[in-house]
């Protein structure tokens, strides 16, 4: 029997490598009827900001070939609401909790991390420097080394547990950004966030999304994500967390073989609400069938 556990360092130890991607799994509670939340490697909750955000106007979504565009724009009720209203409901889950943190300036990230520090069950933060759907901050930080470094170092100063930095794929060389955040103190990197895309309703002759552009996710972008994980895993020493269009165990294995230490399941949750558990089962089945005893053997 394969041992699916993985230690990502600095106190982030997962029973298995399957996490939920921020913004696709709510606070976990939304899926409680159809997924055994205690089985998940970790639950990464939705993007949390210092102050409440209403997000972008409707319409926020367009279905695309093997994927979707979204322009949610970090709608959330702010970190204090998370601490007082959400955390109490999820803190007793067995799966480690990870909070995805966004902001429009480095100080915002630092302050959110500081406030989250009181929550014992939050084992890591995932610093989002790659949201394509907000006017300030977001992806702008993730597309230059200096921007990425600024946010990472601000968060690092106020967070001493595991710190993941979530990278944008909308760059010429993602390994450059990965090395920059590694040097600035990130404990791991997760990649990729969504690709900036756009869809036009040709009958109505206008963009589908209220924001014109949005973030593309789903299996459509998986080959690009796998390539970026492959390049990055060879380029940094910290663990790489792979995501981008993983729909099933086979897809997850592609990332693990490309060098990811763990994976996040995102858009698949919308298509198959039990995708996370299915992926765990399928990785397990594959490893047992191939005589693989630990995840580290998977890398090619």
């Amino acid at each position: 029997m394969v041992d699916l556990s993985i230690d990502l360092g600095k106190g982030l130890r997962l029973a298995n490598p399957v996490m939920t991607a921020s913004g696709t799994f709510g606070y976990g509670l939304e899926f409680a009827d159809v997924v055994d939340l205690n089985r998940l490697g970790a639950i990464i909750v939705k993007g949390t900001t210092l102050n409440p955000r209403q997000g972008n106007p409707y319409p926020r979504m367009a279905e695309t070939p093997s994927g979707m565009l979204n322009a949610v724009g970090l709608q959330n009720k702010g970190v204090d609401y998370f601490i007082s209203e959400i955390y109490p409901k999820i803190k007793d889950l067995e799966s480690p909790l990870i909070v995805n943190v966004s902001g429009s300036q480095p100080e915002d990230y630092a302050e959110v991390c500081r406030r989250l520090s009181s929550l014992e069950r939050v084992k890591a933060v995932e610093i989002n420097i790659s949201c394509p759907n907000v006017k300030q901050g977001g992806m702008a930080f993730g597309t230059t080394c200096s921007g990425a470094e600024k946010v990472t170092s601000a968060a690092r100063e106020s967070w001493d547990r595991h710190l993941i930095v979530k990278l944008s794929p909308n760059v010429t060389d993602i390994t450059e950004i990965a090395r920059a955040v590694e040097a600035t103190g990130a404990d791991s990197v997760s990649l990729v966030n969504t690709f900036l895309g756009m869809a036009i309703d040709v009958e109505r002759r206008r963009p589908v999304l209220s924001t014109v552009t949005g973030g593309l996710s789903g299996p459509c972008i998986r080959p690009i994500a796998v390539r970026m994980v492959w390049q990055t895993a060879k380029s940094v020493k910290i663990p790489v967390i792979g995501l981008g269009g993983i729909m099933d165990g086979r897809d997850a294995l592609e990332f693990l073989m490309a060098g990811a230490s763990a994976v996040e399941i995102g858009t698949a949750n919308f298509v198959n609400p039990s995708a996370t558990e299915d992926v765990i089962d399928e990785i397990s089945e594959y490893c047992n069938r191939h005589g693989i005893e630990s995840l580290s053997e998977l890398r090619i």
Partner: protein
Amino acid sequence: MKYLLDFKLSETRPTQAGDAMLVLEPLDKEKGAAALAEARPGQFVNIQVLQSHGTFLRRPISICDADAEQGLLFLYVKDAGAATHCLCNAREGDVFSILLPLGNGFSFDETYSDALLIAGGVGIAPMLLLAKKMNEAGLSPSMLIGAVNKDRLILTEELSSVGNLYISTDDGTSGEKGFVSQHSVLCRDWKHILCCGPLPMMKGIAAIAKERGIDCQVSLENVMACGLGACLCCVEDTADKGNVCVCKEGPVFNINRLKW
């Protein structure tokens, strides 16, 4: 409680103009019966259509009827795109993954004797379960349905058996000529309106309800992905809470909450 279950298509009842009434049986009878028993009128399912080449996401479809005793789910599907086309042309025996029941349905209680159900187009579908549940609460609802013409009216027979049915058609080929908002039955002294149909129709009805101080619920159809309130794609900007998920807080809203 929400259920993710496989349903087998046991029958496709052809209706007018290529639409179809799908009769679906859960493979897991026990859980299926539980899911069907929980279904409230106005709720919907999110169905995966693997048969459709270009369809990535599930499709939300309102529950037309749910018979927990017989273990049957009824979905009225309008052939309006690649995914629904595949549903309308599915084979008996085809299996579909269905997430259900989703959202909050229409609200009513035994005092709703002065309620008018108003529906148009495929929005007529959820009215069947609504009227049946009102029957169970001892009510015989009045229903007003509308369509472009006689041939586009759906479920008239089924609805006639569970309440008083009023009809309007744009061309007058059945019932009163004109839009539902112009039908004479609207002039009566209604306390509640429960409405489902095309957006312009619902906005027209909502305007009348507001003017006359009638309590009014409408069922929204915003484009959605997860159906569980996780993706935050299907939001409606509400007066009380700003952007809320139609899939979770709706699809039925009291018009007081909407910025219409």
